[in-house]
């Protein structure tokens, strides 16, 4: 009984996820680009959710981590010829370091939740402005990656290979997030989210776990940054360090359901393809119209399901069970 429930609550979503995620492999290559973009956002949302959802720290500074990943691997590749396969770990280490510093800062100065959001937004803006003005980083023009065209340099001829790479990244991130959520660490993080003082009082090492969550989240985001840079073959501040992408990550996670394991998967998997579809069907007519419709869609979901689609789904299932239970009583 217990085992079968465990099976249905963890295995079924995995099967469903893999079925949907692998489907583009069987489809024409025109779908691959969209699938890559979708999985990239799934990856970034899972990473953000570790801090923004599970640990409940409303962080708007994730553009810093994305940029750390993208710029570090790119610079190492351009100047020292180091393969991004190694560079990505340097980027992740840098991002983790920045993340740990932010977590320490907010803990040391006891920032309340909204002040934490403001500090991270300010740091993100400082990073963006700095990157856009430093020539070594390409300033606002950005940097183009040298064409080397070999898998050893994280460059592939076929989009399908990029797709496989990001799929593997997502699976790792998802497994990690699931493991974190269900172990002691996740329990502690959720305790910190619900009541930091109480968590501290019962002996949860709050700072340690905040730093840990931030480090993992930052490193994962940086891996996404390296991947995105390699996929686009260039980096520039607006895409990689602007807060717009963070706003997108947050909104996609919110629509799926913050603080849940599957929310950051469901949100982007539904909405990124929807956004791309809107762009194809509406984009030619008026500039911005597809993003407007997309934005309205987001707002409507937040209005009617502030706890996200996962939360709404849970409520609906509960209501259905309740009704079924009630009819059973009546028929008996």
């Amino acid at each position, binding site marked *: 009984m217990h085992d079968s429930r465990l099976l249905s609550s963890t295995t079924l979503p995995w099967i469903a996820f893999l079925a949907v995620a692998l489907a583009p492999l069987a489809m024409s290559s025109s779908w691959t680009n969209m699938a890559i973009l979708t999985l990239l956002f799934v990856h970034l949302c899972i990473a953000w959710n570790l801090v923004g959802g599970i640990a409940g720290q409303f962080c708007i500074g994730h553009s810093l981590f994305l940029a750390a990943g993208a710029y570090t691997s790119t610079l190492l590749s351009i100047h020292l010829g180091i393969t991004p396969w190694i560079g990505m770990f340097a980027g992740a280490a840098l991002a983790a370091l920045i993340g740990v510093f932010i977590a320490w800062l907010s803990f040391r100065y006891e920032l309340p939740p909204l002040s934490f959001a403001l*500090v991270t937004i300010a740091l993100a803006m400082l990073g963006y402005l700095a990157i856009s*003005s430093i020539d070594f980083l390409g300033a606002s023009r950005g940097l183009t990656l040298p064409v080397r065209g070999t898998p050893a340099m994280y460059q592939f001829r076929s989009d399908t290979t990029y797709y496989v790479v990001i799929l593997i990244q997502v699976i790792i991130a998802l497994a990690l997030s699931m493991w974190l959520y269900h172990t002691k660490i996740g329990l502690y993080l959720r305790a910190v989210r619900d009541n930091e003082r109480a968590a501290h009082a019962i002996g949860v090492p709050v700072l340690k776990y905040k730093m840990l969550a931030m480090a993992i989240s930052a490193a994962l985001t940086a891996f996404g940054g390296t991947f995105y840079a390699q996929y686009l073959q260039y980096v520039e501040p607006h895409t990689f360090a602007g807060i717009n992408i963070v706003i997108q990550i947050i909104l996609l996670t919110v629509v799926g359901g913050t603080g849940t394991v599957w929310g950051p998967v469901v949100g982007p998997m539904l909405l990124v393809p929807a956004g791309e579809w809107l762009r194809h069907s509406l984009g030619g007519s008026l500039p*911005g119209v597809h993003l407007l419709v997309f934005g309205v869609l987001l707002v409507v979901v937040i209005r009617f399901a502030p706890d996200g689609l996962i939360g709404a789904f849970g409520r609906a299932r509960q209501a259905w069970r309740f009704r079924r239970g009630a009819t059973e009583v009546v028929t008996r």
Partner: protein
Amino acid sequence: MSAEVLLQATVQGLQMGAIYALIALSMTLIFSVGGLLNFAHGDFMALAMYGALALYQSFALDAYAAAPLLFFGFFLLGFLMFRRLVQPVLAAGVLAGAQLTLGLVFVQENFLLMVFGGDYLSVPTVLSNKNLVIPPLTMPWPLLVGSLLAVVLAAILYVVLMRTDFGRQVRAITQNSDAAALMGIRIDRVQAIAFGIGIGLLGLTGAIIVAQFTLTPAMGLDFTLIALIVMVIGGLGSFAGSMIAGAIIGVSESLGSLLYGGTVGAMIPYAILVLVLLFRPHGLMGEH
């Protein structure tokens, strides 16, 4: 660098600061309504600026004449939006509210992009391209008038909040909403009106400063961030604090870009914000 140039930059910074303070005060008013952090704040003002453009293009209505119209229009927009959209989401928590406003950023920016396109636009007014010259200072009339009106509007807002029954009700809800309910205050309605006034003020502000700015659909976020900075540095809800913080940010931005270039000038407000949040978490003039 000559003293005249520094003086010029300082005066311009002070004038921008007055405008920043007004935007921050309307943000504070909205924040006082159930703790909503409005990330779409600047976007509402951008919407008003484009509204002034549309009124000029369609009816040859000058932005200054359109200002009252935009106030009432935006008041209504804010009132209805609070009732139908913000309030139900806010019931799920302040974070959900903040996330909703992030969604509104998306909606408004792309609405403007769709209707007006992505090009830089400007709105001609009676004051555009005219300067007041008081040697050694040269002051653009739009900025001068905009900043003076901002001070007047901020003072009116202060009097309304501190000296009227309506203002006392708004503050009562902020300080203790349960006790406010016991006074028979209709919290929903007062909050909706306060939110409406906050958004209405943005409509008004957009109209009176539109001549000073070049319009682009994504301009709102910068204003939001500046307003957040001024609001936090000034200490939430402190009128004098917002004025001083506005002046600090305006002058440091203006002098910073004069002395060290535009990027450093733009970075200074964020650096100040980080430092203030860390060392004076309740702002320069904040209470408790």
